């Protein structure tokens, strides 16, 4: 059933009005080719009930009862019921880009509130309406820094998410740029601040760091960033928004551009998306930032409203000179994040973050009390840490899945020298019982 409105009788009336005897004649007038295929491999359409049965059957083939200790940028956080209700309002999800501002004040004000909220969280002064995801946001930040500084060299700290790093490689391959990756030893959880600084020259457009980093480590970048900026290099921070509820902000550390993955702010894990890239900067760099931006404006009666502004940066005006090709973004996801941050609120987000920290420390203590299990590195951390196991981490992870635990991510897949290491992440959703069960299962897998 394809949701077509017109009846056969209506079609005949319309054809008559156009002066066509049938649809084929209309196709001919429109210079459309004859059908190029009989579409034999396409099945016939099915009813809503049949399709529902099929999708329910497929959903049933997915394992959803594993206790989740996976992270690496995408976290199993509690999502209040009201989030889904609010973003499911038809005015939000069946509207499109707010081209006609007077008919889109809902979307426009919501984006303005999102921009404000993410700035308040990151300590920056202007944000865009969203990018596709954290990884492409990192690339866009790099491209922005190259535009601003007119330089081609980029330094990437150790500890940038390997997922983000893969995305950065893919898009930067088309750019005329040179990337220096800082790599520390396999026994380290740090980002290599001194090496980052040493790699920065007067030809470096930006240094890209992750905070907390991909190993979970939290490091103070303030002094290093001040030194980096002396070379005229911009400082880019990829960050985890939930952690910023309690951690020093990248804004306070002096970063020029702050990006990250917004999924932790109320979006389900959803097997890969849609997610939410956020990008914030300072007013002095605002005109080089890609993406849509909403600003306040007044009508002739002095009423305050919201409009898409600074559009001269974007593709529909600048075309080949645009800051980016981005058009549709992740608007409803930005709204999701705003609603989540509103429902949790000032105190609530702090509480989420502190619960994450409490539970992560409890889990770390339980796990490292198992013979042969030790933590890699010793940096302060938020809710993620790396463990070294006495056996191959892939094998251990596989056996723990059988016991009902998504134990964490075996790092050997992305870091060849870390075959026995696993990245464990703990959120406020994990109960003491679940953590105890996980530790017991880990011990059993390792030693029985």
């Amino acid at each position, binding site marked *: 059933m*394809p*949701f*077509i409105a017109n009846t056969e009788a209506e079609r005949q009336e319309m*054809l008559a009005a156009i002066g066509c005897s049938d649809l084929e004649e209309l196709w001919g007038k*429109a210079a459309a080719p004859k059908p*190029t295929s009989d*579409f034999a*491999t396409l*099945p016939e*359409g099915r009813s809503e009930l049949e399709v*529902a049965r099929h*999708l329910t059957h497929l959903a049933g083939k997915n394992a*959803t009862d*594993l206790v989740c200790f996976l992270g690496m940028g995408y976290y199993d956080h*509690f999502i209040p019921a009201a989030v889904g209700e*609010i973003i499911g309002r*038809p*005015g*939000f*999800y*069946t*509207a499109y880009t*707010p081209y006609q501002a007077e008919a*889109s004040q*809902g979307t426009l*004000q*919501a984006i303005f*509130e999102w921009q*404000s909220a993410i*700035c*308040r969280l990151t300590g920056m002064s202007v944000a865009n309406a969203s990018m596709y*995801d954290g990884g492409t946001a990192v690339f866009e930040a790099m491209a922005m820094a190259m535009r601003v500084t007119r330089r081609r060299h980029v330094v990437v700290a150790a500890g940038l998410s390997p997922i983000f790093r*893969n995305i950065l490689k*893919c*898009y930067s*391959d088309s750019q005329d740029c040179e990337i220096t990756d800082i790599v520390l030893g396999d026994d380290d959880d740090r980002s290599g601040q001194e090496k980052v600084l040493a790699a920065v020259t007067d030809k470096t457009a930006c240094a890209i760091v992750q905070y907390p980093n991909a190993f979970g480590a939290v490091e103070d970048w303030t002094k290093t960033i001040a030194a980096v900026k002396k070379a005229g290099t911009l400082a880019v921070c990829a960050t985890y928004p939930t952690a910023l509820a309690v951690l*020093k902000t990248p804004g306070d550390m002096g970063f020029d551009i702050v990006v990250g*993955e917004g999924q932790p702010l109320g979006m*389900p*894990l959803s*097997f890969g*998306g849609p997610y939410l890239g956020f990008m914030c900067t300072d007013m002095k760099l605002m005109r080089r930032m890609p993406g849509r931006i909403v*600003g*306040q404006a007044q009508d002739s009666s002095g009423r305050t409203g919201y*409009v898409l502004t600074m559009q001269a940066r974007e*593709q*529909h005006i600048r075309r080949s000179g645009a800051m980016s*090709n981005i058009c*549709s973004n*992740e608007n409803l996801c930005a*709204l999701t994040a705003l609603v989540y941050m*509103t429902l*949790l*609120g000032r*105190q*609530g987000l702090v509480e989420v973050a502190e619960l994450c920290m409490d539970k992560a420390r409890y889990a770390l203590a339980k796990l490292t009390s198992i013979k042969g299990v030790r933590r890699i590195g010793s940096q*302060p951390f938020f809710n993620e840490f790396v463990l070294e196991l006495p056996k191959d981490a892939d094998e251990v992870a596989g056996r723990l*899945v059988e016991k009902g635990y998504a134990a964490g*991510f075996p790092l050997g897949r992305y870091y060849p020298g870390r075959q026995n290491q696993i990245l464990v992440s703990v959120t406020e959703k994990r109960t*003491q019982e679940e953590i105890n069960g996980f530790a017991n299962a880990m011990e059993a897998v390792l030693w029985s």
Partner: protein
Amino acid sequence: MELIFKLGAPGRRGVTLPKCDVPRHSDNDLPATLRRSAPAGLPEVSELEAVRHFTLLSRQNMGVDTHFYPLGSCTMKYNPKINERLSALPGFTDQHPLLPQLPEGGALCQGSLEALYETERLLSDLMGFAETTLQPMAGANGELTAIMMFAAYHKSRGDEQRRIMLIPDAAHGTNPASAVMAGFECREIPSDDEGDVDLEGLQAMLGPEVAGIMLTCPNTLGFFDHNVVKVIEMVHQAGALAYCDGANFNAIVGRVRPGDLGFDAMHVNVHKTFSTPHGGGGPGAGPVGVCERLVPFLPKSRVVKDADGTYRLEYNYPQSIGYIAPFYGNFSVLLRTYVYLLMCGREGFRRISENAVLNANYLRERLAPYYEQKYQRSCMHECVLSASRQSAKGVRALDIAKALLDVGFHAPTVYFPLIVPEALMIEPTETESKATIDAFCEAMIAIAKAVETDPDSVKRSPQTMPIGRMDEVAAARNPVLASL
């Protein structure tokens, strides 16, 4: 409306969390220098205040669920509710994207992997391509992905001198923007008097430095280019590739397959042709179909089906352009696409395009006496009118757009494509009835008449919306971009 930050009271909470059931961490667990000095200035409202605020905001939007929304090239068709329900099943929403990357992890996600595999097959069949990647997260992202594959293809053949991308003057701005991001230089191909690509002009521009051409098909004027097959032949003869911007696929879906016409790659916008919601500007997805010779360059990973009927992710593609997205695409958006593909099927898509084209031509016929049309030919799923007659009386396309808001219609697209002065691009879609289209035409006719008798009334609109036209110049000169 007041900003959310102005509502509520200090200490008010929306949602509560469980008490901590493990020991609390000590205050000096994190060095003081790493601690935030004060909590972020997020709202302090009750759940009710939040629900009220956002619900009232949502009512300040026009959306497809409440209004006819004929934005040309956006295909604002109805968003089926079954898409929403099925994509929200916990079996789909609760899975961490890293699960299939765990050892034997594929076994944990067979349902999702099958959904992705089948969606890819169905789209490949509809577009006429060998394989499709579902990873691009929007149409523009799909364009960029395809053009990066063009670059990789030419590079693999030692053809790195091909640095030029040819793009018609009527193209959407994302086309040249994407080409530049992929490292190319753009040259504009002119259109002829019928709105088709100018063949002589094209021939003069083809040469060994041309990597490809980006064509919207049907084009941005709402027409099917008479010469599209010839254009593609010419491009191939010159050693270049042809890309189809499928934003207007709704006009030909189920009837014409761009792959059959000779295109090498194509993107579709699932939030247009395939009914996934527009969300106020996303999230959408821009799957890209490719011909056989471009398959090796597809992004990683890909879903494969083994002989025993199980599905898994494969990463071993040495010529792949790499990772354009963090994982497998905007998964829950793709699920909605899958539901729609299954519901429509072969007959359904055939009927969708023919009804979309019929509706647009009927609308064009009714409005022809009142609005100029630069090109006198039947359109496809959208028609481009010009307010040039009205602008002679001082009333512009923008004014007409605002006047439509006052009578309960969202405006069509205005000022695009750039080659039509005072353009009004109107796309009704197949999900709208003749009665709705008639009501819209009557409104447009009434506005045309008002322009003759009382043009100022049109220029003063909108008068009935929550806000009037805003001073965008002042907003851009003195930007206020956040409440901090």
